[in-house]
């Protein structure tokens, strides 16, 4: 039987505010346990949560960036369950009136562009952390994370493969960093994905029973966990069994998903509007001012790269796929305005290759965008050839100095002295009579032989354009 996979994602993006969503305690990562959990976060009697303005603004920013309807009246609810890292016995979240309504975002998989629906995005508070392996007979609880603002972004079940799910997650990941609402750090848990996965016979409209996959902290694991779950469900259904609706934990070490204890019976969170918090009203003025301050979105940047810089669709897509990459490229463009394609090739070619090889993020590159920009300028003004530039770049990477210092120290400056090149060309022509004959009888390819000889004689420093022109005119 042919099966179709259906995936929806729930993404929790930690909003990069200084203080918590309902208290004035710090959200700084990595502080001493419980040093940032105040009376409000602990749910001590008599405290009152007060909503953080920045958390609201950041949620609105996201909504505008995915073309969503912003619910100008939205409400906080209590989601009730018992767990030690949730001191109040309920999580403040939004159920019926979330701040962000329906929106959409485009993903590119292979050659195809596909629109994925965003069902909603709502504000909520994070829970604390339970640590199970610190004490033998106890679970240790650190409540520093309790009350950190989260935006839960829920997608429509629009994805049909693990690859599409990863493409969507990466798009959202890039977007939240572009608009500056989340640092996107997956290791520290600032950006977390849960995947709802089900399968159904190809052509059937009714959705199959889904399993929710949790504990996925990288895009690589997201793809693996989904594929693993699809296989598991296929095996069950093909053996005549039934998929049970449940939450499953992904174990990256064992490469398996396993059933979690049934958290609480489904639909028993007994949500109700939080009486401590009044409905939130977002004015037209606030909405307009956030809209006006929204930075250039990836999709707009991509369009501009194509229209104004003349880049092709693929290059523009890659260069805008991460904010840090786009920032690097745009810094490089300064001084190289007419060589955008060359800059793009260098970022996506030489630079990316070395970054990948050494597993370095572009923002930590040993060669800064300004430094690489200078190197490209030296190609642009014919000081060095593109080929020599690769050697200079490697020396820059190894910390041997700036492009100009290396070009000077190694004597790599291109020969543009027509007289000197002419002398060399004349000598080569005189010494290689048979090849000259071949060229004259129509063998165009032999030109490469002469270029090679000339490059050898000048240690690669002859200006290739000049050399080519001179060879042609002398040989014909």
């Amino acid at each position: 039987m042919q099966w179709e996979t259906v995936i929806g994602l729930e993404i929790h993006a930690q909003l990069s505010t200084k203080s918590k969503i309902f208290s004035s305690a710090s959200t700084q990562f990595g502080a001493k346990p419980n040093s940032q959990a105040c009376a409000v976060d602990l749910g001590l009697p008599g405290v009152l949560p007060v909503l953080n303005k920045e958390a609201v603004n950041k949620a609105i920013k996201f909504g505008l960036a995915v073309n969503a309807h912003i619910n100008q009246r939205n409400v906080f609810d209590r989601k009730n369950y018992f767990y030690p890292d949730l001191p109040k016995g309920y999580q403040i979240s939004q159920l019926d009136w979330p701040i962000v309504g329906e929106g959409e975002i485009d993903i590119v998989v292979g050659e195809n562009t596909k629109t994925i629906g965003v069902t909603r995005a709502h504000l909520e508070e994070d829970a604390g952390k339970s640590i199970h392996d610190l004490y033998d007979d106890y679970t240790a609880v650190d409540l520093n994370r309790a009350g950190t603002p989260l935006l839960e972004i829920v997608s429509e079940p629009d994805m049909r493969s693990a690859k599409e799910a990863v493409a969507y997650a990466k798009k959202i990941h890039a977007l939240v960093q572009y608009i500056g609402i989340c640092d996107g750090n997956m290791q520290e848990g600032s950006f977390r994905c849960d995947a709802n996965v089900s399968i159904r016979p190809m052509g059937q409209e009714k959705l199959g029973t889904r399993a929710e996959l949790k504990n996925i902290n990288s895009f690589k694991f997201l793809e693996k966990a989904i594929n693993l779950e699809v296989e598991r469900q296929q095996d069950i259904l093909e053996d005549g069994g039934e998929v049970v609706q449940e939450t499953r934990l992904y174990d990256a070490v064992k490469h398996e998903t396993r059933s979690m204890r049934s958290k609480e019976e489904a639909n028993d969170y007994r949500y109700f509007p939080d009486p401590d918090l009044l409905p939130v009203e977002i004015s037209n003025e606030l909405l307009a001012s956030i809209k006006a301050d929204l930075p250039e979105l990836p999709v707009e940047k991509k369009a501009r790269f194509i229209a104004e810089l003349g880049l092709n669709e693929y290059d523009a897509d890659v260069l805008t796929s991460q904010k840090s990459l786009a920032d690097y490229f745009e810094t490089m463009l300064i001084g190289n305005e007419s060589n955008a394609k060359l800059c793009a090739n260098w970022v996506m070619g030489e630079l990316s290759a070395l970054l990948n090889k050494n597993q370095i993020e572009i923002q930590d590159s040993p060669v800064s965008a300004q430094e690489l920009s200078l190197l490209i300028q030296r190609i642009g003004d014919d000081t060095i050839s593109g080929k020599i530039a690769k050697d200079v770049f490697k020396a820059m990477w190894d910390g041997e100095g700036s492009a100009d210092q290396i070009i000077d120290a190694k004597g790599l400056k291109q020969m543009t002295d027509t007289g000197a090149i002419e002398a060399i060309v004349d000598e080569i022509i005189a010494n290689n009579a048979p090849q000259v004959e071949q060229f004259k009888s129509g063998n165009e390819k032999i030109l490469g032989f002469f270029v090679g000889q000339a490059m050898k004689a000048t240690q690669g420093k002859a200006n290739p354009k000049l050399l080519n022109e001179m060879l042609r005119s002398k040989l014909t």
Partner: protein
Amino acid sequence: MSLSEEQVGQIAYLARLSLSDEELQSNTKDLNSILSLAEQLAEIKTDDITPMAHPLHMTQRLREDKVTEKDQSESFQAIAPKTGKRHYLVPTVIE
């Protein structure tokens, strides 16, 4: 609409309330009379009315995003049933 004793028992479990058989009976009776009182609302046409989320006709005031809280964990931990080195300790919870 009315609640069965079984449903009330389930609600009590979710709230971690332990009820004796008598308490279960009397609570079921009380809850059902509250429900029948609220049921009178069903006679009113509410199609065009926005559901109320709060009894006060006010909107939420927002706070500036500033850190003003200091670390008071020592006093908070002094009243906790059990603490370790900076952690609150609870009976082992197995995932």
